[in-house]
């Protein structure tokens, strides 16, 4: 809950908030309201729109292609959020526990993917996955030629291939966040566990994991939102293909509004995506709060 700040009543506050609020209202609040409005119409962006009520939302449930897009977003969540969490917990536990050399270097390196523009990331991974690309070269070098393929053009492997890119760039963020949480755990807790004869694994589940609940919540919130918002990566690597095997909601928004001239439908997907993001963040943070108290 947000309590009152310690300050005293001041009317001048409005003047300080006003400039930020004006830009915010004009370019964010108003457009989201307009998105809700547009989502109730069948509109091609040019002629007069036709009121269709909730039909665009009904289509998200009924339309197989759209359902698939939201399904793909769920698959991506496993790659963007769960895998980085599992790997990040391992890496952070190691870094926190063992006094390894080069901690600063390692932290800088794993965080680097977050900094590079997604378009560049996508170009690099396209190269890795190409039929004559680095991944196939590696597989060939270890004698697994039978596994080589054009990864992004493969109906079965295109979506996981996009997902692995998500794992690649979110793991560093998750690791750095968890490491911060773990370094705040008082060493006495570990010493107490040690005296009780706890194994390293027991210690991890009894001491480390409960102490980083807050960090896990932050990490999951950020990565789940990133999974739901995958646009640039899909736009550059697969454009939703092959078939619609990598279509995701944010790509559908773009494709429908500017490719197919279905602006109302695009707006409805945008609103649904926003609601999904709010709901998921709320649930994750609820869980974290409950765990704390």
């Amino acid at each position, binding site marked *: 809950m*947000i309590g*009152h700040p310690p*300050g005293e*009543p001041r*009317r001048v*506050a*409005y003047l*300080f*908030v006003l*400039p*930020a*609020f004006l*830009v*915010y209202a004009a*370019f*964010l609040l108003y*457009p*989201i309201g*307009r*998105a809700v409005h547009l989502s109730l119409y069948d509109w091609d*962006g040019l002629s007069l729109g036709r009121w269709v009520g909730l039909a665009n939302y009904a289509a998200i449930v009924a339309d197989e292609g759209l359902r698939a897009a939201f399904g793909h977003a769920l698959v991506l969540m496993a790659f963007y959020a769960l895998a980085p969490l599992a790997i990040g917990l*391992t*890496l952070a536990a*190691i870094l926190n526990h*063992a006094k*390894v050399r080069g901690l*600063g270097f*390692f932290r800088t390196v*794993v965080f*680097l993917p977050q*900094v*590079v*523009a*997604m*378009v*560049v990331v996508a*170009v*690099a*991974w396209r*190269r890795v996955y190409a039929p004559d690309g*680095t991944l196939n070269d590696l597989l060939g070098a270890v004698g697994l030629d039978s596994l080589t393929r054009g990864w992004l053009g493969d109906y079965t492997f295109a979506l996981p291939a996009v997902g692995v890119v998500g794992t690649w760039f979110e793991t560093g963020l998750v690791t*750095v966040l968890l490491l911060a*949480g773990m370094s705040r755990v008082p060493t006495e807790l570990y010493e107490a566990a040690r005296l009780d004869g706890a194994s390293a694994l027991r210690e991890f589940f009894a001491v480390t994991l409960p102490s980083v609940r807050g*960090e896990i919540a*932050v990490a999951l919130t950020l990565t789940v*939102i990133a999974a*739901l918002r995958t646009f*640039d990566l899909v*736009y*550059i690597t697969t454009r939703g293909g092959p078939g619609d095997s990598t279509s995701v*909601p*944010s790509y559908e*928004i*773009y494709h429908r509004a500017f490719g197919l001239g279905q602006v109302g439908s695009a*707006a409805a997907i*945008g*609103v649904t995506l*926003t609601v999904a*993001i709010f709901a998921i*963040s709320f649930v994750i943070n609820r869980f974290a709060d409950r765990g704390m108290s």
Partner: protein
Amino acid sequence: MISRGERLANYVILTAFAAFALFPILTIVLAALSPDDGAGPAGQGFSVAGLHVGNFGAAWEIGRFGTYLRSSLAVSLFVVVVSVVLSIMSGYAFGTMRFRGQSVLFYLFLLGIMMPSEAIAVPLYFDLRTLGMIDTFWSVALPQVALSVAFGTFWMRAYFRAANRAIVEAARIDGASVWRILWQVLVPPARPAIVTLTVLVFMWTWNEFLIPLIMVTSESLRTAPLGLAFFQGRHTSGFTLLAAGSVIVATPVVIFYLFLQRHFIRGLLQGAVRE
């Protein structure tokens, strides 16, 4: 104490992961420095110690990255300066003052932190088109100011709430105005928080793809990531120049990050789980 075997295993795991993190980046850097594999005469530039640095010049010319970097720089500079100043001001009000409607207003700003640009870009495009603002600097910059100001307000509010009340009171008793208290008393010690905010907003703005993709049609307004995407579509004969272009697009943020990463990661960690 940790056994030798465990220590070795730790290093193996960390090295393996560092390699995984660096591998695609190295792929692109190495390709950018290798002999040109394109069909055209491009990239025949000079090389230093076997590294074909001439590729960067060729990509710069053919891909017109000079133009794209210039507009990226203009947009980023505008978005960073405006949104950081506006965020400091609103964060100050939310963090140190009490006023009617405060929590409602603050919740409104909080909504913006999670709002995906995918949801607002479509209605914005059609409304700005009606206003004749499509394909202008403002149609790229202002939506991004709005997105950044939401986070910035939240970020600076958290900082100012924790700031030292006694100094503020002392300054007030000395007769300093609210404006002076903000800029001369509160802002100087807030430098780390402001640096982190600046790096984040710069990173987000420089790397933003969807908003420029939708809003801009003229080449002179294309930002660097957008230019790279178009370059990829046009230039299909080889990977060398595309890789060189990618390096050109990524470098400004990477340099910025490497310079400030100590402060930046520390600030990020302090802010992330503060409340």
